[in-house]
């Protein structure tokens, strides 16, 4: 029995199909989702979603962050932004990274939520560069 995987961004439904396994970048580490997974709602960090079929990775998508809902039958990823890694550009990732670093340096060091947000953006930009290189 496969997992019904759905990847949606605010602008559109990007992917909806049945897969054997999907690995998602949860905020506290990569997480593999197989059928009959315990129901969970997880936060995602910037990283790559890997779709596994027949024991091999068939597709890789970069997500900049978001949420995922997992039930025994399906896995729904609400991505802020999702792009197949083949279409990523390293330059864009680097541009974002430097923007996020600039923002981090500009924010007041006592403003913890803003610092966290900037850190998240830096992390997500680094993941983008990494994904583009792979």
């Amino acid at each position, binding site marked *: 029995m496969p997992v019904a995987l759905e990847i949606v961004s*605010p602008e559109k439904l990007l992917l909806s199909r049945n897969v054997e396994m999907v690995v998602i970048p949860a905020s*506290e580490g990569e997480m593999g989702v197989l059928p009959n997974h315990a129901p969970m*709602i997880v936060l995602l960090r910037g990283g790559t979603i890997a779709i596994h079929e027949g024991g091999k990775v068939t597709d890789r998508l970069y997500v900049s962050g978001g949420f995922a*809902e997992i039930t025994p039958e399906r896995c729904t990823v609400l991505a802020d932004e999702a792009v197949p890694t083949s279409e990523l550009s390293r330059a864009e990732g680097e541009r974002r990274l430097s923007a996020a670093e600039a923002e981090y340096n500009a924010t007041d060091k006592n403003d913890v939520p803003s610092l966290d947000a900037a850190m998240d953006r830096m992390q997500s930009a680094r993941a983008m560069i990494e994904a583009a290189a792979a």
Partner: protein
Amino acid sequence: MASLKALRARINSVKSTRKITSAMKMVAASKLRRAQQQAEAARPYAERMERMLSALAASVQGSPTAPRMLAGTGNDKVHLLIVITADRGLAGAFNTNVGRAARNLARRLMAEGKTVKIITVGRKGRDYLRRELAANIVGDISFAGKKKIDFADVQAIGMQAVEMLGRDEFDIATVVYNRFASVISQIPTELQIIPPLMTETGPVEQTTAQAIYEFEPDEETILAKLLPKNLAIQLYRAQLESGAGEHGARMTAMDNATRNAGEAINKLTLNYNRTRQANITRELIEIISGAEAL
């Protein structure tokens, strides 16, 4: 009776007006299709977001640490109205309807002794409300000149609202926008977004589904991220509906204008021909009576 020359000029001017209105109708029709597709494409995300949010909300319900965006500030003194209109006119009563709905709501709230703050999205709303409620407008945003409204643009409005809530600048936020009921009907709608009104969908199914979710890292961390996003999504959806509605309204308005211009042209042409015949008859009579006199 107007001279032939004046009538001719008149007919030509109405004809060119008709050309313009019918071109605008075509443009609105094609933009409408695109706007509708965009609104359609955004729906799955909003639906799934809602599902997650209701699962989360149920699990933190009643907890004293529930975030403000979900529970509200506990007061209802200061109201923030986010009024979404179009940037352009010539769309029938589209902008006026939202403007009037917002004004009536603001008046009602003020009559109850509440403070009203307004953020307008779109130039027409600002222009309409500025006449009477200029002192209440705390911000205006316009997407004029943008071909397609991205999620990021709307998210900025959401962030602004979140910051204002953080500074205790309002208690309740409501969006006033035109809901897209159909191409010919847009309904001015008020939607409360902070604190969000939970839509009860199948209570039986929900209670059983909710209890079993595990959360990672934990409910509150997820909620802290999810709520601003949900706010942005709600605004995005309202913006897209309003966008589709605008084109629908313009299409209807321009269709009417084109038809009216056609009628005007027919009347003017009839008038023109009558005048022309009258002139010929008059000239003939003059010639004949001149010949008889000889």
